[in-house]
């Protein structure tokens, strides 16, 4: 390639002249942004099961290029701490900020990914789960939920 490039650049010294044209294309995409709110279970007793459904749970807002597929990778915690277990995760998505009419993405495992695109350039995700305490120690528990969005 380098040889060809040098040969092409030095071709101006030849007396014969010809030309060719082609085009180079590239797409500049809107930068992806992701923001979110917590999935708050509120207060529980030391032994209790409590469900917070996705529509009332944490919400992520993703902005990106419209009609461009992305891969959304999620990492969900399996526990909040000792004897505080999370289960039955629920993930909903909608291109509108309308959880009631959102589509269920899947019944996600704690780690996974899926492909999505949005004609509006904005995608909303809601996440919910069930927390179960079994003689848990009194205190406040917290674990991260991470969402990573990448253009395909």
């Amino acid at each position, binding site marked *: 390639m380098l040889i060809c490039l040098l*040969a092409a650049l030095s071709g101006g010294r030849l007396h014969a002249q010809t030309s*060719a044209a082609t085009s180079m294309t590239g797409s500049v995409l809107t930068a992806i942004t992701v923001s979110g709110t917590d999935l708050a279970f509120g207060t*529980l007793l*030391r032994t209790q099961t409590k469900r917070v459904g996705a529509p009332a749970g944490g919400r992520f807002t*993703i902005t990106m290029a419209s009609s461009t597929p992305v891969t959304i990778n999620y990492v969900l915690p399996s526990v909040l701490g000792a004897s505080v277990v999370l289960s039955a995760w629920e993930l909903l998505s909608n291109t509108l900020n309308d959880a009631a009419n959102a589509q269920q993405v899947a019944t996600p495992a704690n780690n996974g990914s899926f492909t999505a695109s949005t004609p509006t350039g904005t995608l909303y995700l809601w996440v919910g789960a069930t927390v179960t*305490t079994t003689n848990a120690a*009194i205190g406040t*528990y917290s674990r991260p939920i991470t*969402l990573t969005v990448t253009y395909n």
Partner: protein
Amino acid sequence: MRRITCLLLVAAALLARPARLAAQASATTAATATVLQALTVTATGDLLFGTIAFNATKTIAPAAGGTFQVRGEPGMPVSVTFTLPATLAHPTLPLSAWTGLVNTTPSSNSAVAFAPSAVPQTLSAGSGRLYLWLGATLTALSTPSGTYTAPVTITVVYN
């Protein structure tokens, strides 16, 4: 011809490079929960009107009335709801003018007045304990002689 071929190769090589740069963003939120001590509610004293004559009215002040004790997580506000009987188990024995006192210590002297109601109201239990006193007014109309009892229920939940 050689120059044309080389130019095309250069162009093809440039085109073969990824047209889109990889773009990625992520956000981390949290799943949160707070585990609290269980709430317990104990009725520690009945609201006793004693004896009442026909066509009489008798008021029991809360400090001398029924008592409840609530135990829970210190510093956590709770929502308190009362189910209060309209009569003392007989239509001619109406109950009215319910009054209440609340304190975080077992002394009614420094307690604060509140209005017992079926509407939930938030009370703060800084010490993890609440003491409540309940009073009311009983009117005896043309009531048959006898002993009458009606339940008073208190429901307490964390806010």
